[in-house]
């Protein structure tokens, strides 16, 4: 169901993730993807501005709110030549709003409680950070989950890391995606749900630019999309986006980081919801390219 019958400019109207419906947390249903913002300013971060990340991610996500804009027909992933069905997205994606500002202890407590409740409702929390300090709080609320970390600094050898930043132990980055996917399949315990930490530092710095902890030799967008599609095929209790600072000094107008993260996150959302339908039989430009 579209939110309105007339096209709405991206910068206008009520802001929610991908123009999703807003819900109270008690109304979250099994199978929902429940978006939750955590506008938390980490005063130990090298630059101020991480608290602006949830809003920046939502603003960028509106670009992909096809289901809410009746002027468009269905979207097509031009690279994969795949028709994308957005039917039903509005029923299963919802935005719960932000954790309210308060003392750090209060924010941690509220985030832990919200994550637990969404998990108890058999829904998946899509948590928009900010600071990755809060991802430990989310993890503590999901004790039965296996944790997969894209980017960021490794903390626990029991977790599965994709393109981690080097830590004191000298962890090296392995970008052999096929080998990593095989290792992931071996590591994975399908009796447990997943918690996914998705940090902007997973991307190669020349692409991201807005990360407080830049890295050389990170992943390209296609690789991250591939990973999030794979992860989305699993039962996931929460995915948390961290590492974006949309107002790094001099970079406030460069919206590359949030665009990268939301574009990649779409792969996860659509896989979780079981969307993405091929329409074979029609000759496309790709098929008539002379190879």
């Amino acid at each position, binding site marked *: 169901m579209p939110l309105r019958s007339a096209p709405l400019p991206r910068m206008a109207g009520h802001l929610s993730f991908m123009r999703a419906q807003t819900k109270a947390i008690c109304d979250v249903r099994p199978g929902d993807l429940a978006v939750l913002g955590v506008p938390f300013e980490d005063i130990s971060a090298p630059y101020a501005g991480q608290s602006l990340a949830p809003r920046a991610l939502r603003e960028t996500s509106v670009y992909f709110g*096809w289901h809410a804009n009746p002027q468009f*027909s269905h979207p097509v*992933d*031009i690279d994969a030549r795949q028709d994308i069905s957005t039917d039903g997205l509005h029923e299963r994606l919802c935005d719960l709003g932000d954790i309210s500002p308060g003392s750090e202890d209060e924010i941690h407590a509220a985030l832990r409680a919200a994550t637990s409740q969404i998990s108890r409702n058999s829904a998946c929390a899509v948590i928009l950070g900010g600071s990755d300090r809060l991802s430990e709080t989310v993890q503590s609320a999901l004790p039965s989950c296996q944790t997969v970390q894209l980017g960021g600094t490794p903390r626990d050898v029991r977790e599965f890391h994709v393109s981690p930043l080097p830590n004191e132990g000298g962890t090296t980055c392995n970008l052999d995606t096929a080998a990593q996917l095989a290792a992931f399949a071996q590591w994975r315990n399908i009796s447990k749900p997943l918690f996914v930490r998705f940090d902007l530092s997973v991307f*190669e710095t020349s*692409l991201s630019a807005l990360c407080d902890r830049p890295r050389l030799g990170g992943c390209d967008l296609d690789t991250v999309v591939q990973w999030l599609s794979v992860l989305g095929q699993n039962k996931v209790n929460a995915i948390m986006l961290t590492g974006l600072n949309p107002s790094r000094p001099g970079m406030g*107008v*460069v919206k590359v980081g949030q*665009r990268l993260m939301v574009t990649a996150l779409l792969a996860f959302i659509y896989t979780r919801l079981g969307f993405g339908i091929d329409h074979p039989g029609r000759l496309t430009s790709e098929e008539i*390219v002379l190879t």
Partner: protein
Amino acid sequence: MTAAITTFHPLLAQPGFRLFDGPLRDVADVSADQIGVVGMPSDWTHSSRLGTRFGPEALRRATSLLQSMRPHGASFDPDTRRHTVPATDWLVDCGDAEITPQDVDATTQAIAAMTESLTVAGAIPLALGGDHYNSFPACLGYSRGLAKRAPDARFGYIQIDGHLDFSDRLGAWGSHNHATNARRISELPNIDVSNMVWVGIAGWVDGGDLALIEEQGGRVFSASDVHKLGPAEVMHQALAHAMRGCDELYLSIDIDAMDAGYLPGTGSIVHSGITPRQYYDLLDGLTEAPLGGLDIVEVSPPLDPSERTEFLAAEMLFRILRRFRTRPVTGL
């Protein structure tokens, strides 16, 4: 307009930047086979991030600075492996078209009048955006001029872009904006959709628009096609498709086909993975094409504090205009 202020001795240089440091003259003073530059400093037909109104000025500044750093005599071009010298009198900057904010028709006609005059004279209009809507009035004037100069001639069209821009309407912006320019061009009398080609399209596109293009014989090469086939092969096929039964080519260069990691200073960024090198290789594939007119759009300096966007875009112009701005040295 004159290239220099003549009331003082010695002559004073014209203030401000011109594209490639070329002379500033009226469109009526441009000769056949010269490039005639038309600025289109307008961005109010863009639906989100503005700033391309400063694009023409930035391109003029960047090309002038890069020009000053290039050899002034004979030199070896490592890309073409040829010795060349700079050409003279190959480009004239005609200044900016008269932009009337909030009056799309007045702006359209003002831009079209300049590119039409240049085309009738046998010159090649090069229009500097501005958001991508302005590509339509630039091409409209070219189309009208071509119809006067060669009534039976038809032109092919290649659009290097991250987006199709083939919508019929866009929300509150109606039928004339940066998402409809290609659709409006497809409605001109001396072009057919089957001679229209898009290169570098990335991400999600509207399924209805894509189907309409392909059902009418247009071709779409995605960013993935560029990665899989290589820029040279993609442009070889694109040019062959666009020029079937046509006499000239109109080229629209939207800089946003390049990955936003390299080029963030544009309104509608995409992550195509297309590198500067790949983009330049695409343009190198058109250096011998029968260019009738071209534009470069969506350079938005306020959106890139590093200023690299305008220099990457300036290099695009150096590439596509190579055969005009240099001539080979023989006998070496």
